[in-house]
């Protein structure tokens, strides 16, 4: 009886948190994005008095939204793939090899996470420009994002590499498998969930990242977050900001649901019968 009411309480508080953090902001953002320029939404109205797609159309036609979307949606998957690739060797070493000071290295790899993004961004930019990447803004941001999100990728992938079972590798070898066949049968099934999680996390972080994209990219190279922040500054127009933030967030949610399904179906590697 007591347990039942505790469960109920937890469910209700989860529901409450969801409403507070997700439903209310989302609803407000959606409503604000539909406010027609002809009539402002004043506090004495529960809903915007006139609703239309005018803001959406305006931003689509008259701002750099199209370019920003193209940039962001090229940048994020590239950063995800590049980060994953860069993380692999270190993750392999941390997950599969034995060496002295491994725990220290694990900690060291995570250390960049404690530095605030803006601080990293400001000084990282200097390095990027010294490297001559100022001529290619996309490449500079791509490189910077990959480096910045590397700790997450290494962490996730090294845990995945630990999940690979040595006796699967040995069995494959014993049955005459080439290195590639061994990779396919012993490594890949165990790594797949980690690969998906890494791609998802880096994609989302990259698409939402502002500091580096702003400092490195401005003024010519816009991504969705930099566009959003310019709409938050001196010329703050709430309905426009609402449109952009929805554009920023909606694909992430879709992607997350999609990958979540993939993850659920993925990992049979952990459910082998014995040992």
């Amino acid at each position, binding site marked *: 009886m007591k347990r039942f009411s505790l469960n109920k309480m937890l469910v209700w508080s989860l529901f409450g948190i969801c409403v507070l953090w997700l439903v209310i902001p989302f609803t407000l953002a959606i409503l604000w994005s539909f406010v027609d320029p002809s009539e402002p939404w004043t506090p004495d109205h529960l809903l915007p008095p006139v609703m239309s797609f005018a803001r959406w159309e305006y931003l689509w036609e008259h701002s750099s939204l199209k370019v920003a979307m193209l940039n962001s949606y090229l940048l994020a998957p590239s950063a995800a793939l590049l980060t994953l690739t860069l993380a692999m060797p270190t993750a392999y070493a941390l997950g599969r090899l034995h060496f002295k000071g491994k725990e220290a290295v694990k900690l060291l790899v995570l250390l960049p996470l404690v530095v605030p993004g803006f601080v990293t961004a400001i000084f990282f930019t200097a390095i990027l420009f010294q490297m001559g990447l100022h001529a290619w803004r996309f490449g500079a941001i791509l490189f910077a994002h990959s480096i910045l999100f590397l700790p997450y990728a290494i962490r996730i992938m090294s845990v995945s590499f630990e999940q690979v079972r040595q006796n699967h590798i*040995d*069995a494959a070898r*014993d049955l005459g*498998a080439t290195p590639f066949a061994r990779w396919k049968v012993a490594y890949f099934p165990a790594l797949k969930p980690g690969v998906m999680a890494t791609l998802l996390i880096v994609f989302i972080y990259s698409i939402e990242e502002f500091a580096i994209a702003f400092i490195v990219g401005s003024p010519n190279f816009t991504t969705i977050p930099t566009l959003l922040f310019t709409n938050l500054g001196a010329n703050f127009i709430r309905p426009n900001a609402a449109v952009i933030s929805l554009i920023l967030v909606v694909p992430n949610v879709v992607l997350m649901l999609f990958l979540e399904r993939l993850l659920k179906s993925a990992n049979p590697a952990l459910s*082998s*019968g014995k*040992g």
Partner: protein
Amino acid sequence: MNTVSVQNVSMRFGDFTAVDDVSFTVADGEFVTLLGPSGCGKTTLLNVVSGFLQPSAGKIEIGGVDVTFVPPEKRDTAMCFQSYALFPHLSVAENLQFGLKQKRLPAAERKQRLNDVAEKLDLVAQLEKLPNQLSGGQQQRVALGRALTMRPSVVLFDEPLSNLDAKLRESVRLEIRKIQADYNLAAIYVTHDQGEALAMSDRILIMRNGKIEQSGTPTEIYNFPQTSFVADFIGDANILDATIIGQESEDFWRVSTEIGELLVKSDTPPIAKRLKICWRPENAQFGAGEMNSIEAPITHRAFQGNYTDLFIEMNGVAQRVQWRRSHLEDITSLSMNIRPEDIIFLEAMT
């Protein structure tokens, strides 16, 4: 003909010598067991034969060809792993065919071998299932089948039954032996279970501290252990310190021990004046005899079902007797004798 020949193999890891100058051979169709306590080097030796480890010294030949430095994927051996190591995302049929696909055998031959092995191992109904949908015994059979489809010169078993429960172990034990005989395969089997070793093997190699302590058929090993380690490891044994007093006739020696003077009949002479001797608890004869009679109080007893363990004490030395009769509850002391031929000379005392 010898399928496998291991010649003076040593395996060192830093300062630690896991396998120390070991030599043995396995003939076609022969089932050889490496038996020993954990840490004796038996699994390391198996990994050297399979190619996962390269020996620090010595040579491995399979089918007369030196394979010492040939990697496992190119070696004509197939391993049955302790934890089965089935690929969890592949169906039973795909698991069974994995090695054949690596060999790039034509589909028809793969199918034929798959059916053959599935039928022999009673896996026909399971072919489409994933490994985690099978019972432990079935998984074990898939692991064995996956090795057998390769038609290797030698199958290597790394404690394959240790994850099964006792009843199942006995049936799988018989099955492995039957299939090994059907295919006339050479087999090297690693275990720490003496029952398994005695029941399955043509020949047992008892290992201790990286060396082979004794090798022989199961009956030889059981009836004529050469050292107290072997006597104690295989079956139960009462081991005593003995001093030779004299030779009575050609095969008979008189020895003095903590439990009194004993007469020993042995085809082989003792290797030293002071040495270890042993006798098996189940060989005690009831009642006083013409020689080697012992009478001692029973200190404790343990009923084991088809026999009872009785512990007697003589001059501070505990001896174990196994009695195949019930209704022993009311006796408090035991009168028994040991036949001279049931006492075995072991190694010299150091």
